[in-house]
């Protein structure tokens, strides 16, 4: 189970303090797929990094199975399978060697690694390129290896950051099946994505983030009920429009959030000051 309470994070950029995540709270239970949704720059990835303990929170906390990230960072890391947006692999290692390396990092006993790789092969069909160097893999194959790597230690919690980034329909389908599988075996999952139509298909609950805050939270029906909109896309467009009016900004949502990294926020200090 994942518990996030009043989590806050700001960054200093060019002498200005930018609030990237603003007091967000939510909880994800085993067997749930929680979609943390929002445009680029909403604070999704920063939230994931704080849950993982890669970034320290300014205030608030995150807990994984009762272990607080700031205090028991290794206990937390050991319980998480992390799939980042970046599918970088060690190009000179074979897939098998890579999986063995991550098994070592997560303290998986040597005797068990072979069996685990076999099981992962059944799930992701990686057997055909297990002995191939990572540098020779296609994008889809790389993504499958990245997903397999995150499961090598069989963690109870999964964090997936934009797992379908750069994938075609077939590749994305593999990811959906993967998420479906880990949900069925009782893992608590957070998926960060800005592809709302995909989120609708795979998530059981949603947290809609915008400007660092959690604007709406609940099942799809609950969110529809609150916003009186049918699709997530409509809900988001409405949300962005409303925030623009609130902030009195002339920039469009696209301009505002078309940032490459998550924590680089809108330029003007007003943009990040809420309520």
């Amino acid at each position, binding site marked *: 189970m994942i518990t996030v309470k009043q989590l806050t994070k700001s960054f200093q950029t060019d002498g200005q303090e930018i609030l990237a995540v603003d007091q967000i709270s939510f909880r994800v239970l085993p067997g749930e797929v929680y979609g943390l949704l929002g445009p680029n720059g909403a604070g999704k990835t920063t939230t994931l990094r704080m849950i993982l303990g*890669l970034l*320290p929170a300014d205030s608030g906390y995150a807990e994984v199975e009762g272990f607080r990230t700031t205090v028991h960072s290794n206990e937390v890391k050991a*319980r998480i399978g992390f799939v980042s947006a970046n599918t*970088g692999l060690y190009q000179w290692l074979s897939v098998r060697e890579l999986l063995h*390396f991550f098994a*070592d990092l997560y303290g998986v006993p040597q005797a068990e690694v072979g069996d685990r790789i076999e099981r992962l092969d059944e799930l992701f069909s990686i057997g055909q390129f297990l002995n191939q160097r990572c540098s020779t893999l296609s994008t889809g194959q790389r993504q499958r290896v990245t997903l397999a790597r995150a499961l090598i*230690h069989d*963690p109870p919690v999964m964090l997936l950051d934009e797992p379908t980034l750069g994938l075609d329909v077939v590749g994305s389908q593999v990811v959906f099946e993967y998420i479906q599988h880990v949900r069925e075996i009782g893992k608590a999952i957070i998926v960060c994505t800005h592809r709302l139509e995909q989120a609708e298909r795979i998530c059981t609950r949603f*947290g809609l983030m915008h400007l660092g805050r959690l604007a709406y939270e609940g099942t799809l029906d609950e969110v529809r009920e609150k916003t009186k909109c049918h699709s997530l896309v409509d809900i988001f467009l409405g949300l962005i429009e409303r925030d623009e009016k609130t902030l009195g900004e002339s920039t469009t949502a696209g301009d505002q959030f078309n940032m490459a990294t998550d*924590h680089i926020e809108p330029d003007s200090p007003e943009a990040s000051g809420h309520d």
Partner: protein
Amino acid sequence: MIEQSESPEPDAKEQVPATQFKVPRFRWRSLGRLTLKELRETLRDRRTVVTLVLMPLLVYPLLSLAFHRFLLLYFEPGETIVHIGFVSEDDVEVFQTLVVRGHRLLSSEGDDEPSDVPAPLTAPGMETGGADSAKSSSDSLPEFLMCSDADEMEAMLLAGRIDVGVQVIKSDGISVFELTYEDTSPNSLRGLKFIVDRFRIVNERFGRRLARQFLRQPGLPAEFERKRISSDSPGGVSLAIVLPLILVLMTITGAVYPAIDLTAGERERGTLEALIAAPVPRLALLSAKYFAVVIVAQLTAIMNLIAMAVTVIASGLAQYLFPGGEFSLLVVIQIMGLLFLFAGFFSAVLLVITSVARSFKEAQAYLIPIMMLSIAPGIVSLVGDLELAQWYAVPLLNMVLFARDLIEGNADPMSGVKAILTTVVYTMAAVAVAARLFGADAVLYGAQSSWKDLFRRPAQPIDGPSLSGSVGALAVMFPIFFLIGGLMRQLELSKLQEFTLAGIFSVLLFALFPVVLCLAFRLRISKTLPLRFPHWTGLAAGVLWGLTAWMFAHEILIASQYLGIVMLDEEKLAERLAGIEQELVKWRELPLIVILLSQAIAPAVCEEIFFRGFLYRGLERSTSILSALLWSSLLFGAFHVVSGPVLTLERFLPSTLLGLLLGTLRLRSGSLVPGMVMHALSNGLILSTAYYSDKLQAAGWGVKDADHLPMTWLLVATLAVGAGGAILFGKLAPRATMDPNKIE
């Protein structure tokens, strides 16, 4: 306004369901496999292979060609005449005879047996031959010059007026030609070679004749020894020292690429985040990378050494480069050892730099000035007459000076050990710093200045320093401690001033520094430096051990000396004991309380704060209680070996034992106070007995440094130490004295 969610508010107090997930702990023994992965990755990369194999294969043959060209200019100049200086007229005649013989033999080499090889120099009836009869194809006969004495001969040699100085000396009753040459002058090397070639052939032929005639003759006709002198002029560079420098450069080349690839490369490939997300101490990740870099650097060094040796031997350059015969196997092994140490240190420094970089390009830009800087000590050591004894604490320079001394055969073991130890300490410091920087937020997520991460204050207080933090603090303190100690010895202070300053520095370095670190990095002082008043059992054990444990330390010290674990030979030991006696006379001019305060109480309190406080806590958080106890004691022992003006290896075991007892006190009582009491009592008793040694001696209680203690004392000590242990671990002691905050 943005609507706040109606999410189920998590209740912090709510019970968390017990997890079924078993967390396997990272085991340091899997460090080997992590290192292997890094090595595999590096060695499969063709860029590494180029540095490792192709570079040496290409560089040395090319270098040898260049050397050949350069040397040919000096060694085969056609009509150049060798100028030889003599001190005695008598020597000239004998020398000339032999050289002419050799000259003739050389020009007729391949002929069967010469009939007129002279008898040994010492043998009566020595033949002389005509100088005009010898004709070499390329060398003219030498010119002889007379010098008034040996000093003038050396002066003329250094001035370049003669190329080689010749003197007949007696060695083991045999007359021997001493050939003095200047190792940085090509002309002198050429002259030496001229003579040696001729002497050798004379000796060889003589040997053959002897063998044939079964004659027993004392010595050879042209017995000779080389004597090297070096010019102080800045231009004079011995080729024998240039070669290790080339090796150093090649080692650097070998380490650079893997260092960048394994750190900045992780970020560039996008693998860093997944790596940092794993539950492994950063020090473990960085150590695996460090070992991989060192191994590749060392492999490069070995490849280069082999390529260099093969080239030098195959091209016939050895005789020109090492006319003194320094290129022996022992020297090669010693240089390899030093290269290993050098590679170890340099790789750690490289990792500090490359851990900050976010891309290959950035890392390369940082490394250029560092590489230039690392060559500087080598250049300085070549041109100056720097002494290792003074410069042992300067990284890189100490290694180059040590290598030079080894090649010249006059290395001072004490300075060498100090140079090695300081290099090891600097290496540890650099690895610790690199571990702190590697994977830091700023490197991971591309903020502007990642050096700030070294000094970043966490948002919330934490329970103690990290492993890299405590080892880093230790590594910062070691050199400062040496520096202050060295400075104080040079200042010629009065005893009172010296003791006061020593006390102040103890407080500043061992107590104030950890406190400042705690405040700066928001480490909980109550957990890191627990100074709470302890349970009486802890204090009682501290007092009992403080009064008696020193006796065991004393016995172990004697046993260490008996086993030969000493850095001082008998002469130096006697010197030191006499020095201690003199010191004691000076001590007695001061009141005992001043000595106790500055030499017993201040160091005891402050060293406990550092070793059992800061260092122990950092070790405990990342390893286990037992390894924290063991390592903090070993480091405490090592610190006492190097803390004095001279290395005292025999102090290692007793200090480590005391460290173990002090650590046990801290562990069981959960406070530093009992250890401080024990440490102060122990120091105080030793100092007081020394202070009153003459009076104790008069009363029949005296104990000399090298004597065993009376058996009754040792019996009492055994009982007291046992009683202390029983109190500490028995039922009287509170149960929950161990620190419950064991994290990670």
